[in-house]
C-alpha cells in the first residue's frame, strides 16, 4: 500500500516513470471492465484511452484519504460507460459484438470450440442482468477488484456490495440455465 501511495504521489508531481507504471498496472483491467460492460471492442478501445487521458488530467484532484486509487480510476471508467449507454439509449438491448476478443486459449480445436461457446453463453447471459449486477460482475471478475474497491466505485457499503454480488451470481446462474 505504501509503495502505491508513493507511486501516486510521484505521479501527481508529473514523474513520467510513476505515471507509466500506474498506467501499465491498470490498463488491461480497465479495458476488460469496459469491454465486458459494453460488448464492443472498438468503443472499448476508445473509451479505455479516454479513461487514462482523463485520469492524467485530473490526477492532482485525487486524494489518498478519500478512496482507493483503483476505485477512483474505475469511477472514471464507470462514468464513461454510463455516458456511453446514455448516448446509445439501448442499455438493455446492446447486442454482443462478435468482434469482442475472446480470451487466449490453448488446447485442441474441439476443446477450443466448446470453450468459446461456453464463454459466449456467459457473456450473453450477463446481458440479462440488471445494470448494477453487470457492474459488480465486471468489477469483481474482469477487473478483479476487492469488495472494498468495488464499494468505492459503486458508492455503496461493503455489505450492500456483498449482497449484490450474491444476487448477481445467482441471477447469472438462472440466466445460463434458461439458455
Amino acid at each position, binding site marked *: 500500500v505504501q509503495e502505491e501511495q508513493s507511486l501516486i*504521489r510521484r505521479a501527481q508531481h*508529473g514523474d513520467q*516513470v510513476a505515471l507509466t507504471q500506474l498506467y501499465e498496472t491498470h490498463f488491461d483491467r480497465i479495458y476488460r471492465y469496459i469491454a465486458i460492460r459494453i460488448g464492443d471492442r472498438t468503443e472499448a478501445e476508445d473509451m479505455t484511452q479516454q479513461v487514462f*487521458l482523463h485520469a492524467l488530467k485530473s490526477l492532482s484532484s485525487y486524494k489518498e484519504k478519500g478512496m482507493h486509487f483503483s476505485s477512483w480510476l474505475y469511477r472514471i471508467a464507470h462514468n464513461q460507460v454510463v455516458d456511453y449507454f446514455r448516448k446509445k439509449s439501448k442499455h438493455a438491448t446492446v447486442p454482443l459484438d462478435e468482434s469482442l476478443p475472446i*480470451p487466449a486459449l490453448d488446447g485442441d480445436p474441439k476443446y477450443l470450440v466448446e470453450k468459446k461457446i461456453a464463454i459466449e453463453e456467459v457473456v450473453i447471459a450477463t446481458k440479462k442482468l440488471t445494470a448494477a449486477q453487470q457492474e459488480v460482475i465486471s468489477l469483481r471478475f474482469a477487473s478483479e477488484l476487492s469488495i472494498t474497491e468495488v464499494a468505492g466505485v459503486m458508492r455503496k457499503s461493503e455489505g450492500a456490495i456483498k449482497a449484490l454480488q450474491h444476487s448477481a451470481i445467482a441471477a447469472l446462474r438462472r440466466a445460463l440455465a434458461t439458455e
Partner: protein
Amino acid sequence: MAKAKEFENILNECLDRLIKGETIESCLKLYPQYAAELEPLLTTALEAKQATLVKPRPEFRQRAANEFQAAIRNLPVKKAASGFRWQVRWVAPVAVIVALLAGGGGTVAAATNALPDSPLYGVKLTTESVQMVLTFSDQAKTELYARFVDYRVEEIVKMAEAGNYEQVEQATERMNVQLLAMAATESNLVGHGEKAAFGLMMQDESATGPSLSAHRATTPSTTPAPATSNMPFVVSSAPPTTENWSVKTTETTETSNTELSEIEQLRLLLTSKYEQNLKILQDQLEKAPEALKPALQKAIEVLEQGYLQAIANLG
C-alpha cells in the same frame, strides 16, 4: 438476516480465493456446512471469471501507450510542493547523494548488484531514480534507461535461475516501464514530423502483422558479450543488421561515414543492446523449466516491443 450476512461473507471469501487462483474444492472444504449452497454459485462465478479474460489487441495497446506517453510529455510543469512535503519526498534520494558525496557510499555501491530478493534492492532502485534526476539531456537519459534495462534483464535471468516466477514477472514489469519511459524520452530528440511518420508506420505494421518475429527469423545471429551490470556504453564494432526491420532505418548519409550523428550513435547503441539482451533472454528461455517459460516469453515480448518502439522513435 444474520445468517444471510454470514453466508454472503463466506461466499465473498471464497470468491476472493477463486480470483487468486484457488480451486472451488479447496473452498468447499473450508465450509462443508455450506458446500451444497456454495458449489453452484462458485461454479458460475468461475465461468464468469473465465469469460471476462478478454485482452486488448497488441496494436491497440501500442497505439494507446504512445498516446499516453505523448500526453505525459504535454503535462504542465508542476510547481515545487511546500517545504515539508518536499523534504519528506527527497529524504531517500538525498540520503543516497549524501552517501555518495561523503565517500561513504559502500551501501549504495553494494546495492548496485543487488537482486530483487535482496534487502538492498530498494536502495538500488532509489539510486537509479537519483541518477535519472541528476541526468539532464534527453540523450543521456535514454542511455541511462538502456542501462537500467540491462540491469532488469540480468535480474530476470538470475531470478529465473532461482526459479522465482513472481520476481521474473516483477522485473519484467519494471523493464516495461523503463522501456516506455526511454521511448518517450528519446522521441524528444527528433522532430514532430518524424514522430508522426513513425505513428503511421506502426499502424501499417500492425495491419500486416508483427514484423519483429520476421526480423528475428531473418536477422543473422550475433554473438554478443553478456550484459552485465557494469556493461560500458560501447557501440558494437560490428554494425547491427537492421535491413529487415520494418521500422525506419533510413540512411542518414548526409553525415560523414566516419562521424556518426548523435541520433545515429544512439540508434546503434540501442540496436546493439536490444540484440544482446534478446539473445540472453532467448538462451535463458531454452534452458528454463517449463513452469518458467511463460514468464520468460513475456519478458522477451516486452523487450522486443519496447526496443522496437524506442529505435523507431529515433526516426
